[in-house]
């Protein structure tokens, strides 16, 4: 389940960036064409000397992002206008139709996998036993924050359990960010918008929903970076083995000062 999730997440992210590149701007409201400028916009422009450069405008401030955002090198090595660079999109070349096929197929896989996981977690009591914070957890929140900042990891039996920050993060991701990404994704479908007329306005309108979809995706990327970082610093091979086989080797308890 976790590894289906990993593949589907990367495909969704990168095919999503391909789709974004067809209109590399984010707006707030019901439509893209209002009196207000976009919140975020990536444009490729040509300097008087013919050189192509990339500009990213965020809340009215302009940044030169040539090479990465707005303009980057295509397969032939020429600088061309495009939102996100070829190495971040699926497929690599500009191909909206194919990007949509990847995205809309893997979206089904991702949702089916995710719903199965939640159902499994409820019925196996994984959710209640391992993820629901206990009273002791809540009391340990201060110490857990300090431990995380100092990259101090539990040893002994505590290693086998999720700590409070882990629990909260997982719960926010599973029941907050992921459903938000799915709902805002569905809200961009004009057919589904007609199911209950006007429901998209609850998200601020279709273009707001598109913006939220994008923000949710990047919050998930932020989660992924921290998640992978924590996996690496808390013992990469041990964690990886346990993620694949379920076996986890517990380190003998040490005093915190001896840590590494």
């Amino acid at each position: 389940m976790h590894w289906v999730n990993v593949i589907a997440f990367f495909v969704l992210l990168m095919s999503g960036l391909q789709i974004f590149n067809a209109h590399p701007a984010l707006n707030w409201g019901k439509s893209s064409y209002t009196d207000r400028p976009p919140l975020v916009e990536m444009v490729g422009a040509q300097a008087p000397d013919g050189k192509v450069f990339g500009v990213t405008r965020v809340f009215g401030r302009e940044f030169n992002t040539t090479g990465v955002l707005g303009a980057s090198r295509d397969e032939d090595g020429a600088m061309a206008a495009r939102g996100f660079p070829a190495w971040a999109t699926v497929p690599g070349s500009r191909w909206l139709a194919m990007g949509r096929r990847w995205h809309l197929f893997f979206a089904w896989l991702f949702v089916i996998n995710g719903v199965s996981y939640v159902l499994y977690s409820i019925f196996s009591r994984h959710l209640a036993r391992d993820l629901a914070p206990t009273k002791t957890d809540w009391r340990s929140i201060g110490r857990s924050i300090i431990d995380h900042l100092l990259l101090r990891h539990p040893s002994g039996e505590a290693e086998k359990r999720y700590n409070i920050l882990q629990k909260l993060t997982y719960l926010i991701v599973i029941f907050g960010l992921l459903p938000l990404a799915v709902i805002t994704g569905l809200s961009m479908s004009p057919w589904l918008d007609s199911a209950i007329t006007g429901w998209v306005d609850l998200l601020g309108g279709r273009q707001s929903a598109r913006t939220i979809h994008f923000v949710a995706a990047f919050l998930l990327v932020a989660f992924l970076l921290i998640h992978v970082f924590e996996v690496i610093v808390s013992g990469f091979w041990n964690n990886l083995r346990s993620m694949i086989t379920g076996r986890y080797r517990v380190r003998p308890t040490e005093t915190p000062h001896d840590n590494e």
Partner: protein
Amino acid sequence: MTTNDSGRRNFLMQALAAGSAVLLAGCDRLSRTEWFPQMLASAEKLSQGAQRLVTARKSMAQEFTEADLSPTFRSNGTANPDSPTYQALATKGFAAYRLAVSGLVENPRSFSLAELRALPGRTQITRHDCVEGWSAIGKWKGAQLSALLDAVQPKPEARYVVFHCADPMDEIGTKYYESIDMDDARHPQTLLAYELNDQRLPIANGAPIRLRVERQLGYKMAKYVMAIEFVSRFDHIAGGKGGYWEDRGYEWYAGI
């Protein structure tokens, strides 16, 4: 931290970079096979089935107020069809325009603009969602396609309505076309629009007639409609996928 650890980390980073490059190349290679995009396309039927399951057959697209109108309605794709016949019609204000209706109908005939305006019509302020991701809100007025159906009487075997357009899409003159099913054809918001924002439909937006199918994406809403054909299948027309963009890999079901 020991040197052993950082060496291991470097190795990991390099392995990750190499791995992702291989994966990307793999994705691109898969995109160019025949079977993989076809497998991906199986999701289209799933999406269509699921979306129809949770929406009413005649569910209405959201309608907006004048305050929501986009200052200018963006023109996408063809802005002025590069064809002598179209240009000849346009210079005379489309006075000689006739919309030809043929195929599986009891009464094949053609309609002048005045005859289309005389059909039961509808005015609606709706949001146009482009497959590229942008939306624009415009006020449309047009003849209800259902009224045209009543006039020409489709035969029971008619399953799709095909719209043939005036705009050539390339040098060899491939014309734009689109198709919808009978449910969409009978939908009250499906219009043959002749007005945008209380003005005669501009050439940039599809004059003299453009289709509005409000529960689908913009590419379904053919501009410069010249002829309508009722068919039981469309695999013999052009690329066989039911539309200009469909022949180029986009989904026939554009509700998503």
